[in-house]
Every structure is written in C-alpha cells, then in structure tokens.
C-alpha cells in the first residue's frame, strides 16, 4: 500500500467516511510507517486548532435582534419583491403555452425529419478537459503539483480496487493511462468538469 493512497484515506477516516476494510488497512499501515503517522498527527493538530479558531462571537443581543431585523426587511418588501421566481402566477400560463408549442414542434420534427444519416459519434476529448483544468490552476504551482499527485493516486486507488476484485494477487501490475476504459475516462471527465464548474 502506497503512502499517497493512505494519506487520502487518513483524510476520509478523520471525517468518519472510511469503509471498515480500508480503515483496517490504514491502521496496519500506520503501525509500520512513521511518516504517515506524523502526517496523521499533523492533520489532527490542524483539526483540533480549527475548532479553537474564532467563529465570530457576538453579543447575545445580536442573536435576539437578528430575526426581527430580517422580519422588518421582509415587511418592507413590495409584494412583487417577496417572490423572486419568474414562474409567478401571471406568467405561469405563458410558460406552459410556450412549453406545449415547443413539444408539438419537436414531435413534428422527429416524425418528419427522422435522421437517416449515421448518428454523430460523441468524441471524448480528454485533452480539452485537462487543458481547462490547467487553465483553472493557472500559476498556482503548488496546486498543479498536488493535482498531478491526486489524479495519479485516484487512478491507482481505482485500479487497486479493480485489481483486488478481478485479479487478486497480481502484484506490481500497472495500468497505462491510455488503456483506461471508456467508462473510466468518462467518469474522470465528469469529475474534472464538476471541478471546473465549481
């Protein structure tokens, strides 16, 4: 078991989100690896200190008055401002009508213009997704280095599980990136896209 993988599991363990099997592996590893033990101690120190950091204490009066302040602001709103939704009753029928027209047109299109040509195949662009990620990371070299480490560890973790399930005991087996399955690439792509959106 590699330390990089264990570091990720230590983080999950601290959040109470680690499976029993992995928990056991972490415990066994920690007994043998002083570096990971130090890493765990440092994370625990951070966690303890987080709880002591100022969470913005204010006078008790503040909490008593706060709900009233919100109530006052609500009552000062004009009736139209009380609901921000564009789906207010006045507009609702217009939206429903527009949706119906759209459905009818789409139905007609599908009946009369059913595509006869070969369907376009979606080409998964792993390079584009990565380029976007690197753009997001920008000049933050620390984050870039960490991203590389994490992606590698993520692939290793997934492959480790596959290895255990399908080819138990195949020690030292490595899985080149270009041999990832389409499903794995799509999963990786969706994770990257989520990161970019967030």
């Amino acid at each position: 078991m590699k330390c990089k993988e264990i570091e990720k599991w230590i983080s999950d363990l601290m959040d109470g989100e680690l499976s029993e099997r992995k928990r056991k592996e972490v415990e066994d590893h920690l007994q043998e690896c002083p570096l990971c033990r130090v890493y765990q101690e440092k994370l625990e120190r951070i966690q303890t200190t987080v709880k002591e950091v100022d969470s913005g204490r204010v006078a008790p009066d503040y909490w008593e008055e706060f709900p009233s302040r919100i109530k006052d602001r609500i009552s000062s709103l004009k009736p139209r401002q009380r609901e921000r939704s564009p789906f207010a009753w006045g507009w609702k029928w217009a939206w429903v009508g527009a949706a119906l027209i759209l459905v009818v047109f789409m139905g007609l299109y599908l009946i009369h213009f059913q595509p006869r040509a070969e369907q376009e195949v979606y080409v998964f662009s792993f390079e584009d997704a990565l380029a976007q990620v690197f753009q997001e990371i920008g000049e933050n070299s620390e984050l870039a280095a960490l991203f590389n480490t994490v992606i590698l560890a993520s692939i290793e973790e997934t492959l480790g599980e596959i290895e255990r399930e399908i080819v138990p005991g195949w020690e030292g087996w490595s899985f080149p990136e270009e041999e990832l399955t389409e499903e794995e690439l799509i999963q990786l792509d969706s994770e990257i896209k989520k990161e970019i959106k967030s």
Partner: protein
Amino acid sequence: MEELPDDSLVRMAKKGSPDAFAELVRRYQKKIYSTIFQFARNHHDTDDLAQETFMNAYQSLQKFRQKANFYTWLYRIAMNTTMNFLRKKHREKGREELKEDRLPSGESKFSSSSPEYQSQKKEFKEKLKEAVDSLPLAYQATFVLIAYQDLTHGQAAEVLHCSEKTVSWRMHMARKVLQNKLDPYF
C-alpha cells in the same frame, strides 16, 4: 412555534407567515453566521452576508420543493451568497500572493511544555486562518463545511452540488495544502 419541525415552518412561511420564517432564522442564524465568518473574517461583512442569505432564502422560498432538508438548502444559499461576494472582492483587490513569512525549518517549535506555548498556539491559529483563506474557493468551502461545521461528505455534496467523491478529494487536497503551508509551525 418553537416546537414545530422545519418542514411545517417552511410550509407556514410559504403561505406568508413572517413569524414562521423568523423562527427558522432564529434556529439557523448562529450556524449560518459562523460559516460565513470563516470566509469574511469580520463582523460587518458577515452581518451583511447573513442578512442577504436569509433574504435570498425568503424570496426563493416558493421554489424550495422540500425534497432536501431546509438547512442544507439554506447552507447552499449562504455559500452562493458568500462565494459571489468573495469573487467580487477578489476581483476588486486583484490577485495577491499570500505573504509567506516562513520561519526557518528545523526542530519542532511547538511543545506543550514550552514556556512559549500560548504565543506559539496563537501564532499557529493565525497561520491556519491565513492558510485556509488562501485555499481555492471550492476547497475552502468544502473544508469549512466539514471541518468547522461538521457536515458529512453527503451533506456537503448536497450543499455544493457535487459528488461525495469530489468532496472527499477536495478535503484531502485542502488538508495536504494546509499541512504543507503550516509545516514550519508544527
């Protein structure tokens, strides 16, 4: 009113009861305030953002379908409001590099038996705050929700609109960055 569950209060507030909404505010004001404070770091901005969060929640209440918990939905509004504020603030300030007044590395500077224990503890807290503030926003948000507010990965995923796996990786990366930045102060 105090004994009613969130769901009932939400239904009453949707029908126009300001008292029901005020009770929801009373229930969650401290959690929302302390979460926002971890980003804003001052009372003035935190107060503004907390008010904004509850006003946004009130004005969007009709859209809340009550499939998720009210507090998860409220956290999401708080995070969006705070993130928008911080992005605007960062744009105004420009991208500033975090000042790193690193101490020389070597033997551990932190020992409970040391006479400098209190001042070192205070320094560590300050450095931790700085390090958390320097995290990319998505990582900071995840870290605050889980490490400060004790949300589970599942709850944080709901608030942040991402998968639990993403939350788990973000926590790992955030901790690794914090550990690196704080390394000279352990």
